[in-house]
């Protein structure tokens, strides 16, 4: 019965590999990848409900009982992210389908996107540290492919930097795995947690935890975000939205997982460092969002700020802070996809990257303008949209933990974020229209559909946050009480 856990990873892989044989049929590529991601979404929603009712699900591959075999462990936190990620990537594929970039579609764009989602979902679900590494690599190899697809000069040079940074961080990941296997003799997350708890996390293990902190920070863009704005801003729209929504979030997921399940015994050291790193990220990201007039860069720095914000909740290390982080993580996957799709659509329509070179777009494209305003408000955390609850709870958690300075920085950064997107709105959408109604580039309604869906989701999440509450409560309950996870992941019935 628990076989259902493998579907979020296996369906995209099967779909992706079979699509390799349909290279010259773009419509088959488009629709089957969209449908397979939708199927993954519905399966994961179903399993989310099942997990809430019956507790953690586990799948032992090949019938090898843990800790000997590789396991997939689905708890509410992982499944919540799997369902959000699948839905958002389905919408990104939908956008790509309507944008219809012939060159990239012929170069296996959709199989790469599907493999990326497979890697992401696998990373969320796996219960084994080495398997996490493998899933990261699947995701990264697909992202290398997407990064350089099309082969424009800028993409290639940025691609080299991106690949190099990620090879290095994967190297550090393997290094950490080697050390932790050498000291504890296991790689199963639940068993690692048990053994670390027995040993009481001596300084040696705390040092290893810092190694993991560096690795996952590099993936998430926490402090080590220098590679992010350059590489995200050379990508085509749908792919950049997929990257912004998913890639960094996997790093954040790994950070939250390792520092609540494994290395939670020395919060004075590890969580304080995370707090400082979150602070630096918030400040650096806030400077970035207001420093650039290139709207792609503004959007990329918005990703950075959000990462800092989510980790403020982890640094608080209490139930309400973690809950806030989970809410915000879900919200952020949706809203980053929406913002990147909007920015990409603006560039598609006008061909202009600078926010001071355009005005009056709302006269030409009213619906796009209003969706942009809605996205801007949601990004800034204005109620009733979905960012509000996450921000509120992260702030509460931070204040409960006595980290007033961090709470202040988090909320100040929200103002910068709000300012940065409202500035784009005021400059580009308001004012004198620069293009006449007759000369404007036609905006196909198909491209608007995913935008409308994402806008509806962020609004619905804001109004209907209560629907999400039981799942988030369950997720944070498991995160704050590692013994529940251990029991679910190790016990044989």
């Amino acid at each position, binding site marked *: 019965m628990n076989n259902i856990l493998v579907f979020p990873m296996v369906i995209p892989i099967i779909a992706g590999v079979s699509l390799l044989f349909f290279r010259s049929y773009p419509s088959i590529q488009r629709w089957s990848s969209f449908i397979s991601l939708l199927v993954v979404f519905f399966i994961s929603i179903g399993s989310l409900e099942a997990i809430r009712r019956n507790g953690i699900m586990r799948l032992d591959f090949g019938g090898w009982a843990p800790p000997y075999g590789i396991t997939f462990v689905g708890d509410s936190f992982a499944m919540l992210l799997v369902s959000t990620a699948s839905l958002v990537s389905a919408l990104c594929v939908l956008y790509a389908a309507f944008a219809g970039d012939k060159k990239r579609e012929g170069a296996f764009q959709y199989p790469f996107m599907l493999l990326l989602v497979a890697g992401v979902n696998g990373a969320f679900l796996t219960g084994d540290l080495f398997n996490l590494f493998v899933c990261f*690599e699947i995701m990264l190899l697909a992202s290398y492919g997407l990064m*350089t697809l099309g082969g424009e000069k800028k993409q*290639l*040079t940025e691609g080299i930097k991106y*690949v190099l940074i990620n*090879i290095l961080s994967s190297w550090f990941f*393997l290094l950490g795995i080697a*050390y932790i*296997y*050498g000291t504890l003799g296991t790689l199963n997350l639940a068993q690692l947690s048990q053994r670390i708890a027995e040993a009481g996390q001596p300084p040696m293990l705390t040092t290893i935890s810092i190694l993991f902190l560096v690795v996952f920070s590099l993936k998430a863009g926490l402090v080590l975000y220098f590679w992010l704005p350059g590489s995200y801003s050379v990508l085509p729209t749908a792919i950049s939205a997929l990257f912004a929504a998913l890639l960094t979030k996997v790093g954040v997921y790994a950070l939250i997982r390792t520092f609540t399940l494994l290395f939670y015994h020395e919060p004075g050291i590890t969580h304080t460092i995370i707090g400082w790193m979150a602070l630096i990220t918030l400040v650096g990201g806030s400077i970035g969002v207001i420093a650039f007039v290139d709207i792609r860069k503004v959007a990329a720095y918005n990703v950075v700020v959000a990462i800092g914000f989510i980790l403020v909740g982890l640094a608080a290390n209490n139930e309400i802070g973690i809950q806030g982080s989970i809410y915000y993580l879900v919200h952020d996957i949706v809203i980053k996809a929406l913002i990147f799709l909007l920015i990409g659509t603006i560039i598609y329509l006008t061909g202009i990257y600078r926010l001071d070179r355009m005005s009056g777009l709302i006269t030409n494209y009213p619906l796009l303008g209003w969706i942009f305003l809605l996205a801007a408000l949601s990004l800034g955390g204005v109620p009733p949209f979905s960012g509000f609850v996450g921000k509120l709870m992260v702030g509460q958690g931070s204040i409960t933990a006595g980290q007033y300075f961090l709470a202040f920085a988090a909320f100040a950064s929200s103002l910068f974020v709000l300012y940065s997107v409202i500035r784009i709105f005021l400059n580009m959408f308001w004012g004198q229209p620069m293009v006449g109604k007759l000369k404007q580039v036609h905006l196909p309604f198909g491209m608007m559909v995913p935008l409308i869906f994402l806008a509806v989701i962020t609004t619905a999440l804001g109004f209907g946050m209560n629907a999400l509450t039981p799942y988030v409560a369950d997720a944070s309950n498991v995160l704050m009480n590692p013994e529940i996870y251990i029991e679910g992941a190790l016990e044989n019935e």
Partner: protein
Amino acid sequence: METLITLLVGVLVSTATYLLLSKNLIRIVLGTAILSHAVHLLLMTMGGLKGGSVPILDDGTETYTDALPQALILTAIVIGFAVTAFFLVLVYRTYQSVGTDNLNEMRGSKDE
């Protein structure tokens, strides 16, 4: 034996670091390849080298070598191979379209 291999890992890592810090793209690719081999060796060493006999249940043998690190390395080698192959193709493609293999001449863009 462990000490010897650890020293070898150290030598490999320093060689790789030297190569990675150069400006030439091919040297950087070679650097990443050597770096990944260094960590594979480290993985094997961390599992303990001379643990015992072949990990197959048999009469008369008391200790067995830990087989897990070798399984891990096998996976990591395959991944490293794929990444290196991709990186080489990427570097060659970049060389073709940019016309240089020097990283210094690739930084930034004109409008920045």
